[in-house]
């Protein structure tokens, strides 16, 4: 029985700039079903953090409840983590982020945790443009309770028992664009080539970055008739374009046809190199992005890739004008200036 991952790794594993190999970013061995799309997304996060030379102790991973929300145990063992209440991950993330803006926040949620019980929290965290990466591992069913249809199950999609979903689905990516999210992307767990650069770009985005990742439930929703199965998604996937993440200071050498390639400079000098495939789509125009998603949907396609991103995004700290430092680095006298200061404040309000 192999419940334990052997400690040996490939002796020639390369080290990143920090001197860590990929294995330093791994988590515990997954207890999800074999073949679960979520595990691929976890592997994508591991790869992205390794590639970005992120120090694991500068990352906090947060989640709610569900199969997806178990995954923070399976990546970044050396990072901070908080497994919160069902659908309440955004609140915890908001609190943590306000207290310590110096960490990178990765929120992991599922379609149930976001589109049902956590919908209220989800829409408000978008409104506030909290600086975090919010990933929904979207499998269209409640896998942890044996595969009932979730709110993102498409109308007419058939589940494993043969039951056909009668209700309209909530399209989380459209919703995020509509509500003003400043970075919205959609991807598929079975396509790491697309997913990893998207995660990297999202982690570098200053503000709320949302990635809806279709992640087949291999046990309850991978059957014929399901619109979230490996086969269906592969057949119906349509990409807006390809995204390459270019670290700061690196020369751009890729050779693409003029006019289709765009470089989006991020706040730290790194860049996203975008090769557009979709016609008439402008990723910086909310209406254009919305149109592209709906247009693909009307053709029965699943549009993936970067959908929308805002160049100059002001995150929650910018809007509130909070201190530039993590609260735990401030001295006691700064955090608690004393009764004289309080009197002064009160007096100014009289």
């Amino acid at each position, binding site marked *: *029985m*192999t*419940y*334990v*991952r*052997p*400690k*040996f*790794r*490939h*002796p*020639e*594993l*390369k080290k990143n700039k920090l001197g860590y190999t*990929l294995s330093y970013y791994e988590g515990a*061995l*997954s207890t999800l*079903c*074999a*073949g*679960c*799309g979520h*595990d*691929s997304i*976890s*592997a994508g996060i591991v790869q992205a953090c390794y590639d970005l030379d992120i120090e694991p102790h500068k990352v906090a991973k947060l989640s709610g409840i569900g199969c997806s929300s178990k995954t923070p145990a399976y990546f970044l063992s050396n990072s901070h983590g908080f497994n919160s209440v069902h659908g309440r991950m955004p609140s915890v993330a908001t609190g943590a982020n306000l207290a310590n803006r110096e960490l990178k926040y990765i929120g992991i949620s599922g379609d149930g945790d976001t589109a049902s019980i956590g919908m209220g929290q989800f829409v408000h965290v978008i409104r506030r443009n909290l600086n975090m990466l919010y990933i929904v591992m979207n499998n269209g069913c409640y896998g942890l309770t044996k595969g009932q249809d979730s709110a993102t199950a498409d109308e007419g999609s058939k589940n494993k028992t043969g039951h056909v979903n009668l209700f309209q689905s909530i399209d989380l990516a459209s919703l995020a664009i509509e509500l003003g999210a400043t970075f919205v992307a959609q991807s598929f*767990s*079975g396509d*790491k080539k697309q997913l990893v650069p998207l995660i990297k770009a999202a982690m570098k985005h200053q503000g709320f970055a949302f990635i809806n990742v279709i992640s*087949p439930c*291999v*046990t309850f929703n*991978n059957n014929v008739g399901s619109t979230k199965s*490996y*086969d269906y998604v*592969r057949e119906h996937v349509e990409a807006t374009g390809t995204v390459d993440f270019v670290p700061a200071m690196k020369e751009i050498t890729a050779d693409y046809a003029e006019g289709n390639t765009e470089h989006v400079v991020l706040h730290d000098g790194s860049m996203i190199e975008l090769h557009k495939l979709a016609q008439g789509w402008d990723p910086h125009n909310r209406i254009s992005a919305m149109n592209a998603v709906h247009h693909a949907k009307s053709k029965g396609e699943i549009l993936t890739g970067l959908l929308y991103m805002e160049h100059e995004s002001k995150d929650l700290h910018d809007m509130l004008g909070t201190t530039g430092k993590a609260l735990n680095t401030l001295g006691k006298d700064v955090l608690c200036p004393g009764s004289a200061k309080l009197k002064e404040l009160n007096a100014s309000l009289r």
Partner: protein
Amino acid sequence: MKPTDIQNPEYFHKVVDCQYACPAHTPVPEYIRLIAEGKYTEAYMINWDSNVFPGVLGRTCDRPCEPACRRGRIEEEPVAICRLKRVAADNKGNVKQHMPQGPFAPNGKKIALIGAGPASLTVARDLAPLGYEIHLYDEQKKGGGFMRSQIPSFRLPERVLDEEVNYITDMGIHTHYNQYVSSLKEILAMNYDAVFVGSGAPQGRDLPKLEGRQEGDANIHIGINWLASVAFEHTSKIGKKVIVLGGGNTAMDCCRTSRRLGGDDVKVIVRSPFADMKASPWEKEDAMHEDIPIIDNHVPKSFVIKNGKLAGMMFEKVEAVYDDNGKRKLVPTGEPDAFYEADDVLVAIGQENSFPWIERDLGIEFDKWDMPVVDPITYCSTNKKVFFGGDAAFGPKNVITAVAHGHQAAISIHLSCEGLSMMDRPAPHVNLVSQKMGIHEWSYDSMVADDERYIVPQADKKITLSNRMQEVELGFDPLTGFKEAQRCLNCDVQTVFTENKCIECDACMDVCPTSCITFTVNEEEDALRAHTKVPAHNMEQDLYVSDILPTKRVMVKDENVCLHCGLCAERCPTSAWDMKKFFYNVTKAVNACQQETAL
């Protein structure tokens, strides 16, 4: 790349590095698992079938398997395969009942074996059960050949050798000991159906032209002859100061034997640098452990004689210089020559073949090095009735190579006696069986143990140096043997991939601890090796490539550092990966028309 042909048994055979490296292709992981289960008798029999002398080899084998062991590429040290073999031999039960039981119905054919070393004994073991009348000739009083005369008893107790030689001679072999064969012509005149020459490489090299060689003769000995004379108890002491010339395993045996026969100040002096010495690293260690310094880069210049007696040796100091092709030259350093005192000198600088007893008009062709022309597959000489094997065939090698030759020569002899073509070699016996018993259940211990290689305990130096018969290594006790056995990665449990079941979920690629699996677009091998998750630099290890998958990619597995932990198969939702035990056994003459020994 083209999809890997896993129907060809040689593909998976190569994955089992230890077995592939073993000249006799002993199914190593199979017997190591049996040792872990405490089934020592069964483990012994797996060995006995392949290498005929498990007890001997478990102590003295050159272990080509160990440098090949996959574990050595993953951590520091390979599995102690050789010493595990000894655990099976030391703890076995009644093995004789599992061996072919005579008397065997005669088949009317008569065979002579010249020399009773490992090659001839292997031929005897393989052919006796088929009804051959076998005549074994040797000049010594007992069988075993160099295993008896060259390997000192502190490494190989006589009882171990006797036992394994007797298993064979007890099969009704006609032994003609104490009988030196001085003419092959005479043997051939005795109307044998085939003659097998397993007479070894019996001539030790000398330094005949070195100054003082003649004058000092009384105290200058040829290493292998001296070891034989110790083994047969003609020699029981040596001077206090001894120089051993040479850097091979015979030199190590000479110096260590000298320490036991009165040599207080024993030195090994070798021409080459220490690292280039031919001796196995562990034999060098054992010698140094017995307070024997190894002085390298010293070329013998002369034997120094004082008052008509050997007083020591003069050496020129050199250094090794390597040219662009890696060819070594020993260049004098210009330092003054070094003198070392010695009462006795043992010359162990190599050994050679010698066939003064083979007449050159028997249709056996000899090449320009005066070696018989022997077919490397059939081991047949240019005289279709005369076969060669062991050191006699292609020069000095080792016991396990001699055994491997013996198996193949026995097949040739049998085919030839049956009037069949010797080139029709029997296919190996292979089997590939799934080990899956449940979602997380495998019928082998797939958990990879982290333990470092265990050290074999040795007897106290005070005792071993005072008694030539005291074995130095004590062998693993059963518990340590179990722990060491658990270090084996079970490389014979193969990862087998079925394309049409794969849904390309990437689970195997993500979970593989050693990053062996990559899904990528197909390319030529060089490009593919560069594009695997970790570039596949080890060209000796194959890539396992699938056919094209629905996304137009292929699965590529670099076999190099696969732990055979089964995680890929466990995380595969569709059983596209399976762990299948691959059993590969070289067919022996004895198996050809007899059922395998049922265990």
